[in-house]
Each structure stands twice: as structure tokens, then as C-alpha cells.
């Protein structure tokens, strides 16, 4: 029997108009989809209709929850705003919990400046840990993102492809390992 394909969706973690991270998320989704045995989706948090007068699992959205439940790993694309992440990314992530436990996550930082979202990645790590996700030690950093793509979203610097490939190889290894653990290795 063929093994079930891994499911690794890409989360676009900003709702800001004109967001350059959309190009990054699209690129990541295309690169994930090239990997054999992997299925993916692009999840735009701007299209996850959560209320803002409550928070947490009480406002879980069925479609987002189903995708997180199905996922073996996540790619989170996050721009850096004032050294932090988009508040609505946290709002969406906080709407689930059991769906994340013992699943892998890789973070792609995006910034208009020279540091490639390194500070937002550092700020997201403890959040991911508390959600039960397992972070990998590869990141992808898009610096001066406004120069990395043309107006149509075409990547202008091919060196990113090699970095993304290494990032995905590590993420896929972790996803396979954690799936085996979730399904086969008991806590006690």
C-alpha cells in the first residue's frame, strides 16, 4: 500500500495590503509542491474569517482546524513588523491546539531591511513551542524582499532556491519522523 502523502501547508502570516510576503509564500508553496510524496496548500490568514471579539480555541474555524489536523508540518511565512509578528497571525494560530501537537514547523522570515526577519523568527519560536509544534533548525530569511521579486512575483535571486531546498529537506525529515512517533510510539 502506498504511504499516505505528507501534507505540508504554507501559512501566509500577514493581512497587510501590498504584502510582499505573498510572493514568498507562493514561492514556498511551489517549492513544496515539487517535492515527491508531499501535498500542500497556501493558507492566507486574511481569508480565515475569525472574529476579533474573542480568541483562542473558542473561535476555532472548521476549515483551518481540518487543515491543521491533516498537516504533518507547517511552513509559516512571517514578515517582521516592528521586530514582531503580525498580531492576526497569532490570533489565527491560537485558534487551534490539539491539531499541532508533535508536528514540525519551519519559519520563513521576511523583511524590507537587511536582517531577513531574524527577529520575528526568534519571537515566534517560543510561541511554536508552546503550541506543541517542533521547530527545525533551518530557517529561510528574505532580506530586502522588495528587491527579491519583480512586479509579477518572479524570483530575481535564484540562490534562494538552494536555501529553500535545504530547509524543506530538513522539514520533511522531521515531518516523517514525527508522524512515525505520533502514530507508533506511545507516551508510556
Amino acid at each position: 500500500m502506498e504511504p499516505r502523502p505528507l501534507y505540508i501547508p504554507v501559512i501566509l502570516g500577514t493581512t497587510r495590503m501590498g504584502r510582499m510576503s505573498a510572493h514568498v509564500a507562493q514561492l514556498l508553496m511551489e517549492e513544496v509542491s515539487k517535492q515527491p510524496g508531499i501535498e500542500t496548500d497556501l493558507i492566507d490568514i486574511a481569508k480565515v474569517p475569525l472574529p476579533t471579539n474573542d480568541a483562542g480555541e473558542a473561535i476555532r474555524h472548521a476549515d483551518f482546524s481540518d487543515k491543521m489536523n491533516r498537516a504533518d508540518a507547517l511552513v509559516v511565512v512571517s514578515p517582521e513588523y516592528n521586530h514582531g509578528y503580525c498580531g492576526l497571525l497569532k490570533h489565527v494560530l491560537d485558534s487551534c491546539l490539539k491539531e499541532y501537537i508533535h508536528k514540525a514547523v519551519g519559519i520563513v522570515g521576511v523583511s524590507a531591511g537587511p536582517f531577513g526577519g531574524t527577529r520575528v523568527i526568534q519571537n515566534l519560536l517560543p510561541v511554536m513551542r508552546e503550541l506543541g509544534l517542533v521547530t527545525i533548525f533551518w530557517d529561510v530569511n528574505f532580506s530586502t524582499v522588495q528587491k527579491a521579486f519583480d512586479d509579477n512575483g518572479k524570483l530575481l535571486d535564484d540562490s534562494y532556491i538552494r536555501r529553500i531546498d535545504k530547509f524543506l529537506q530538513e522539514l520533511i525529515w522531521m515531518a516523517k519522523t514525527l508522524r512515525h512517533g505520533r502514530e507508533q510510539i506511545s507516551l508510556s
Partner: protein
Amino acid sequence: MAGMAKEESKMICRRCGAEMNHHSDKIVYAADPEQAAPTELTLGGFMEEFHTCPKCGGGASRHN
């Protein structure tokens, strides 16, 4: 009995009916008065168990 593993009832996958694997526990601290009473007195919260189906990969959780 000392040294004997705690027995637990297996969760059954709602999608495919297979026995699920209990792979994680997480302590949850609740502000809601109905949930706030700790069931794990030494840990100060209640324990949530996480289970995954080895057949279809579906996940589920339950409070201990």
C-alpha cells in the same frame, strides 16, 4: 501496584475506527471556573491527552 504501567482506555478514531496512539500530554491552565479546578493537584492544572490514529493519521484529544 508499584512498577505497573497505568492502564488507560484507548481512544477510537472517529474517522476509521482504529485504536489511536497516545503520544503526548499537556498541562492546561484554565481561567474558566468550570475548568479551573486542577485534576492534577501537583501540577496545578488539568491534563490534556493527545492521540493519533496509526491508520488514517487523524488526531484527537481528551481531558484526563
